[in-house]
Structure formats: C-alpha cells, structure tokens
C-alpha cells in the first residue's frame, strides 16, 4: 500500500518544490502560523512526526511533508490533502518534535483554513462526522450517540456496518434511545451563532488573500461540500 503511494507523493512534493512561485503563496505560512499558534517555519523535516504518527500509513502526505509544503506556500497542495483530515489529533508528533513545532495544532489550523477557503474536504466522511457531531451538541447541549450514528449512517448510506456491535450495545443500555436536552440550549444556540459570525468575518477577511492565490494558481478551489 505504502510503496507506490509514497513514490507518487514524493513526486508531488518535489513538483511543488520545483514549481516554486507557480501556484505557491508566500503569505500562506504566516496565515497557518497565526491560526495554529505555532512556528511551522522551524520544521527541518527530520521525519520524527512521521515515525510517531499512528495513521501515517493511510496519509497521502507525511506530516513533515505538509510542514514543508506550508513553508513553501503550497496552499492548494496542502488544503486538498487527505492528511489534514486523517490526523487523529493524538499529538505524538507535537510531543516529540525536536523543533517544538505543534504539528497537531497546525493540522487543526489547516482543516479550519480549508473549510474557510471553501475546499471540499478530501476525506468527506470525516468532515461530515464532525459536522453532525457539532449539530448534536448545538441542538441538545450534549452528544446523543445513537442519534449521531443513525444520522451519519443515513447520510453515507452505509446502514449495516457495526450492527454486530450496535445491537449488543442497545441490549446493555449503552445507546440511549432519547437524547438528553440540557437546560441551557438557548445559550448553546447563541454560542454557536456567535462563533459562526466571527468565522464569517474571517472568511470575508481572507477572501482577498484567496483571490490573490487563485490568480496565482490560475484556478479556483472546488466549492461546496458538507458540514459548516
């Protein structure tokens, strides 16, 4: 699984390196560092993050490759990648980085920026799950596991996987049929609304930057997709 994929990815990375200036955006590094609150520029690609990463075997770019592409301003390459969605947020990379780059925080920031720039997530199901999870929190104040599972399954059409574990869980009363609704649902609704309003302001602010990058890249990112 790894061999051919790794070869292709190495080619993609070197292409991005060779075509510096073409489709790259110098301001991207600053944007990521600001959103993530960590100095991605300190990364010297030692690969310790990749060696520590439990899910690098399914990633299209290794974490240090993502860091390098961010340094090079390869916005499109990074925001289209599967890696930013597959990161499991275990923070082994951040803990072990000899340059003290918070790689996991950078991955979070890249997900946020991808959404903000209107990219369709390369791992649509993962983004869909996050969206439905937060919908559940916004509406009732707590995650209703059974409701979340059913909604996710209806959206993906994958109705029957996990029945082997779902049914015994029901029997043991581990999947509550009715959601608990907190008293503070109104506060919750307003909280989500205020966060979203700020995010919308951020989108407007970054549209200028996105337009510049589009012009430089000679195309526009795919719009649409699910979730917030």
């Amino acid at each position, binding site marked *: 699984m790894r061999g051919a994929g790794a070869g292709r990815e190495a080619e993609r990375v070197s292409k991005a390196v060779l075509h510096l200036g073409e489709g790259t955006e110098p301001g991207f590094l600053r944007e990521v560092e600001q*959103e993530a609150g960590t100095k991605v520029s300190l990364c010297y690609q030692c690969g310790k993050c990749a060696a520590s990463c*439990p*899910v690098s075997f*399914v990633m299209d770019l290794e974490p240090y490759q993502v860091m390098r592409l961010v340094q090079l301003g390869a916005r499109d390459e990074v925001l289209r990648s599967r890696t930013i969605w*597959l990161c*499991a*947020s*275990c*923070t*082994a990379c*951040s*803990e072990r980085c000899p340059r003290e780059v*918070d790689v*996991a925080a950078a991955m*979070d*920031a890249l*997900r*946020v920026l991808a*959404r903000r720039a209107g990219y369709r997530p390369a*791992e649509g*199901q*993962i983004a*869909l*799950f*996050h*969206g439905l*999870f*937060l919908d559940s*929190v916004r509406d009732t*104040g*707590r*995650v*209703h*596991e059974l409701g979340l*599972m059913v909604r*996710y399954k209806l959206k993906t059409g994958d109705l029957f*996987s*996990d029945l*082997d*574990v779902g049914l015994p*869980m029901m029997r*043991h*009363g*581990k*999947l*509550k049929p009715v959601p608990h609704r*907190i*008293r*503070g649902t109104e*506060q*919750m609704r*307003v*909280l*989500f609304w*205020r*966060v979203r309003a*700020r*995010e919308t302001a951020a989108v407007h602010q970054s549209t200028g930057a996105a337009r510049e990058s589009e012009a430089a890249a000679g195309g526009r990112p795919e719009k649409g997709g699910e*979730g*917030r």
Partner: protein
Amino acid sequence: MKYAYFPGCSLSGTAREYDRSTRAVARALGLDLEEIPDWSCCGATSAHATDKLLSLALPARSLARADRMGLDVVAPCAACFNRLRTTVHAVRSDARVADEIREVLGEEYGARSQVYALPDVIVNRYGLDNIAPRLKKSLGGMKVACYYGCLLVRPSAITAFDDPEDPQTLDRLVRALGGEPVVWPAKTECCGASLSITRTRVVWQLAAQILTAAQKAGAEAIVVACPFCQSNLDMRQVQAQKWSGRRWNIPVYYFTQLLGVALGLSPGELGLESHFVDPLGVLRQKALV
C-alpha cells in the same frame, strides 16, 4: 476530598459502566463527587477540528459552572480532561483569548477551577496510602497491561501529571492492588478514536497492534482510563479478530473496575456485565468474583 464531577457524554451512553464504577469507587473511598449542574459537551474532537474558539468556548460553559461551585474538576474521560484542561490553560495564559471566550459564552468565566484526570485524582491526590487500608482483595499477581493512550498524557505541557512516553500512574495502582503491570511498548500509542466511525479499518489495525503488543508482553488484561480506548480495544477487538484472523481474547477494564473489585464491590456495581470480551473469566481464575 471533594471535586466537581464532569462525566461527559460517553459516560451516560457507551461508557456508562465507567460512570457507574467511578461513582461506586468514589463512594467506597469517601471521595465526594458533585456533578456539575447542567454540564454540556466538551466538543472533543470535532470542535477543535472545526474552529479553535468553539473548541475553547464549549468546555468553558461547564467550567464556568465549576468556578461557581468553587471546586476543582475531575474528568474520567481522557478526551474531556484534555479539552477542559486545554481551556483552563488558554484562559489563564492568554487574556485576548479569554475575552473572546467570555464574549461568545455570554457569561463570566475566570478559569479559577483546575481540571484533573480521574487516575491522577485517585492514585496521586487521594493517594495509594489512603487506598491500601480499604482494600479487601488482591489481584493475585494478575498481569496487566496499563494502556494510557494519547489524550490522558499528551500534550504533557497541558496534561502535566505523568511522563508522556512511559507514564506510571496506572502501573503504580495495579501494583498496589496486587497485580503485576507488564512492561510493554504500546502504552501511549493512539487507538485512532476520532476515526472509529469514519475509518473503522484504520482503528482495527491500530487495535490489532496494541492488542498484539499486550499479548506478547504476557498480559492477562488491559486497563484503561478512557471510553474510546475501552470501546476500541474491547468492542472492536471482536471485529479486529475477524478482520485479522488473530486471536487475543484479552478483557479490557476501566481502572475503576479493577480498583472496585479489589475494594470488594460486586461485578454488578461496577458494570462488568456490558463488556464484549468476557471480563469475568480472568477475575474468576484469581477468585475475585
């Protein structure tokens, strides 16, 4: 000793036996847990993958209630602990972020209450010296792989109670209960919790690696302090066996369940009936039930 109790969403559903065993053990130890009134979801892990401010404001709502109770918080779920403590850290260290959080929250929040992980509270703060005189049974040399996973001990700048690479809190507890913690390499590996629903095969593979490591170290049981670790290693163990053709058959206990058994509580009080891999076989061998 009294704490504000933040159970978190999983503990009223898929991990209800963690809630039940936590409350039973706390009662037996005389540790006072007062549930935070009208607490809400911490947002892990979807909120921080979506919006940084949201990921801090969601925990802040419950933490503001803990501030008003005037109590430090204890969270049994490693993911909740991690997000709650991250929020306290953010509010205490960055005034601008603190203002933003208060603004979207629409209420006062000063991060006065600190947040602690349940194993830290029981083993390090309540203390093994206080537990020892209350023990009624010994684990009889049971070989136990203590699995900490990621969110309980990382990032260590936030979690700050144990070594991020070779943590010892649960190992010390198991030893005090008469068990033998095994030395094994997968203690702080990630089980892939956030991908459990969306990329289940990845989780099978990660669970297979962790379970195989425990088996090779001679573990008769695995002990955890996180609802996602438990469900991925117990519930998904059955699936991963079918998928990989390997066989482990290792029971996965919450640390509160093993502690509860040693304190003389019954399997029913500890919610031991709802596991996928038989949890009673090993306990019977050691004449614990």
